[in-house]
């Protein structure tokens, strides 16, 4: 009878993906799933964390492919479009996407920039438009842009223009390249140094611990301002602003790992006397395995929390050393620089669209925090 037939027999045989899923499911049920599988499952079950992850991927995607996504190159400006407000994109079936050109003039009485749109002329827009040249991924020469004007000499300002007539959307996309990389490398370096040195110090104790701790105290006692002043004078003048900033963040992170090392040392000291560590030692586990495998899980949530807080702090601190000539400044482009430039009354009152980079920073910070929060929860898959 058709009714009594096994329904499974009617379905297609299971795909490899379904089989993998089923096997994994089985592992969770019989308790043989590995730690990383547990962490992954726990992480995936957190919708906010997943959202943060997707958002972060999207943000990094736009930064990596900034040249392709941006309508213009970061250095191209147009004197006629300084403080051009965001342009509205029109669409009709016969013309496709288009914008109207604007004519700017400055009112001598009010000093206001007046932009007059010419509704009779249409500047056609297209996907995969040819425009300014750029280097995709830093080495592939290209001139195709995701969206732009058909005529490469025309200008498109979806988010408006800055005071020199550069396209803000392009600036934000290019700015992400620096904001999302340089500072974060510094954070990563000090994290790695902190874990390794702090771990060694706490794990071995004794003379090693004493020496490392005295070195840490010495480094912590170096006054930072004279150090920065010295660096400002020592850095060769032909170094560009981004190189300078990168060198400074590296030097700062070479000095900034001490706080993290202290915390790690304390946690390692604390768990060193626990029975499970003794058991691992008796089993003949190596020092590295004991530190990374047996001790690390107990304080990984702390590391993740402090790192996810350090990242946004780094983005916002990009410009903080500018007064010494060490931080990021124009003509370098980063979100911090764009925000710094928009912090004046003229922009807030008359060009509010220039505050848009703040939105990029907020989104990034939120994404990092969601991811960090999810990772922290997932790092302890047996917790509630």
């Amino acid at each position, binding site marked *: 009878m058709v009714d009594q037939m096994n329904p499974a027999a009617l379905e297609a045989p299971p795909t490899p993906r379904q089989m993998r899923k089923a096997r994994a499911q089985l592992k969770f049920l019989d308790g043989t799933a590995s730690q990383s599988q547990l962490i992954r499952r726990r992480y995936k079950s957190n919708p906010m964390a997943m959202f943060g992850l997707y958002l972060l991927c999207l943000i990094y995607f736009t930064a990596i492919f900034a040249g392709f996504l941006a309508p213009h190159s970061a*250095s191209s*400006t*147009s*004197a*006629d479009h*300084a403080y051009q407000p965001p342009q509205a994109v029109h669409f009709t079936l016969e013309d496709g996407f288009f914008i109207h050109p604007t004519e*700017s*003039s*400055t009112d*001598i*009485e*009010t*000093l*206001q*920039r007046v932009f007059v749109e010419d509704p009779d002329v249409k500047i056609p827009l297209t996907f995969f438009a040819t425009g300014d040249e750029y280097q995709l991924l830093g080495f592939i020469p290209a001139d195709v842009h995701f969206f732009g004007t058909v005529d490469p000499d025309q200008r498109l300002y979806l988010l408006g223009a800055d*005071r*020199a*007539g550069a396209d803000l959307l392009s600036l934000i996309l290019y700015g992400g390249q620096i904001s999302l990389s340089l500072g974060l490398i510094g954070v990563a370096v000090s994290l790695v140094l902190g874990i390794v040195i702090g771990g060694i110090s706490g794990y071995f104790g004794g003379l090693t611990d004493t020496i490392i701790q005295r070195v840490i105290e010495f480094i912590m006692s170096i006054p930072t301002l004279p150090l920065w002043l010295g660096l*400002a*004078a020592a850095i060769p*003048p*032909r170094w*560009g*602003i981004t190189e300078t900033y990168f060198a400074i963040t590296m030097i700062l992170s070479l000095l900034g790992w001490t706080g993290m090392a202290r915390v790690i040392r304390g946690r390692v000291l604390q768990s060193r006397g626990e029975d499970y560590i003794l058991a691992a030692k008796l089993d003949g586990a190596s020092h590295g395995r004991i530190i990374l495998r047996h001790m690390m899980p107990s304080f990984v949530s702390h590391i993740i929390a402090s790192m996810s807080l350090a990242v946004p702090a780094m983005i916002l601190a990009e410009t903080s050393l500018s*007064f*010494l*000539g060490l931080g990021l*400044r*124009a*003509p370098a482009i980063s979100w911090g620089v764009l925000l710094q*430039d928009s*912090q*004046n*009354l*003229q922009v807030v*009152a*008359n060009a509010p669209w220039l505050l848009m980079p703040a939105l990029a920073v907020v989104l990034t910070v939120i994404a990092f925090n969601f991811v960090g929060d999810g990772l922290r929860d997932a790092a302890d898959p047996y917790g509630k």
Partner: protein
Amino acid sequence: MTSTPGLSRRSFVQLGAGMIAGVALVTLAGCTFDAPAGTAGAAGTKTSLKEAPMLTKLVKEGKLPELAKRLPAKPAVAASFGGTALYGGTLKRGQLDAGDRGVMQAFATASFVEWDEDNRKPVPSLAEKFESNDDMSEFTMTLRSGLKWSDGEPYTADDVLFVMQNWLGNKTMMPSAPYWFSSADKSVPQAEKVSDTVIKISFTSPTPLWPKYLSNPSVGGQFVKPLHYLRQFHPDFTDQGTVDAQAKAAGFDSWDKYFADRDNTWTNPDVPVMGAYRVITSASSASGTADLERNPYYYKTDADGRQLPFVDRLQVQILAQEALDLRAANGDLDFQAQFLGYNTTQVYLQNAEKNGFHVDRWTPAGSLLSLCPNLSHKDPEIRELFSKKEFRGALSQAINREAINKSLLGGLGVVMQPVAPKGDEYYSDGIGKNFLEFDADAANSALDELGLTEKDSNGVRLMNSGKPLDFVLLYVDATTEIARTDAYSMVVKDLANVGIKLTLKPADSTLYTQSRTTNDYDIDGTTVPQTKFDLEPVWYVPTGGNSHSAPAFGQWYASAGESGEQPSADVQKLLDSWDALRTATSDDARVKAGKAIMKQHSDECYMIGILALPFVPVVINNDLLNVRDDKPELAFVLGRERVTKPEQLAFATGE
């Protein structure tokens, strides 16, 4: 533009308040001061007062001598830029840095001589007469008799002698006198007291510029110091041990630093002054606000013999740039020109009408953004290149100034080269026009003719030695006027078109100054003042190591050949003209030498001008009267806001 209503709510309220205040005052006056009965209306009574009501009250209480005893026998009469005025009120201002003494220079300077109304020549001020001998090497000054310090002590020739001998002549405080204090051979002038009010000051060489230097408030103000107060801090008058001990107790390394601190009228409320205002609370206090009050012994009156100043008090807040801009836009600053950003003018204008102020447009001085190639460059090959007129001209012609103007100033800016402008005494017809037009082809062919034809793979021209034309532009970034990085970025693109690579290096001001004084830079990016260049010659003539165009040559000149490097023939010609100017024995000879310097700059294009502001905004409360409206120049050497003689400013409503 919307039409102005006949009487806005705000002005109605102000008018009402003013009338109430006026009535209250008159009532008060009637009760306490025996005001002559039966005078015309309120204003009539008040505008006939000869001194401020707050001082009359002190006189009645016996705390202050009467007006006639406070004023000198012949008071100085201040130029007036308006009509009758009332006494009273507090004028509010802001500034960025607590240590900045601009307010004192603008509002509270007293000096022997000061600029006349047209800001062209010095006229006597504290001095009643200021005369020179025929070759301008000896000056005889007659002080007004009866001048008094703000604490009532007499101001006499002894105070002048004190400055000339114990301050200027003191080797600890003045190890080497700057050129504006000294003769051509660097010796300090000698002073001789002829009588209690007459002083003779003699230089070893003609010094035609000295009266002009004295008229600059920041220089002239330094020559007025109270002997009776400062003697306790000076080892010539007080035992050295006591002086050192005082300095130590106050936390200073040496007595001269403590002396300078006590002598600072902006930070030390105790020091007596001769200017219109004295500080009551200094800005370094916790509140971040400086309060200044009128000097009851001020030596100036208006044409009717009414003692100045009209405004009772000044209040100066220390603010960040954004806060200062906001306060100006809100109408919270009564009279402000310095520190306002040109780029915020639009916001001031938008808020002016509803917040009861107006925005005047004064003439900028020193806003011309320029490039100064280092003529004394360390690298001999670059020095030789920079010393060629054709090369500097090519740099200049390669710059598309109109595009920068259109982009950054909406086309309102002024494109010019740094030379004296029309109207200045050193201007001559036809200067300042060289290499000003954008002409990339001409620039390219000029560079080709210089033999810079080889190019590297990036299209950058190579020098004979094979090094690329790759220069670093050193500057301090600023955005309140012409946004420098934006402007220079456009110059970078323009120069790249003719095969010259320029790298921008925005630096903090310490590093910037240090690089310049150690001759360690390629091209300096700065703004250049244009009028009255003789008061700050260092821009046009390398007179010291702080020169923008040739620090090593300047060092040589300042040290008389002991350090630095011997100037090139070109620069030596400038220095010779400068020596002729500063030791000229007649005005004609002086102006001729100055014109020669300007002509040489115009011909040789040592500095490459880019763009200057069309005006500087000045925010003025609608209630504030007597601000001159003829677009004066806002210049440091004129004391900035001092050009409108702030002692005669007054509020329409008085109190």
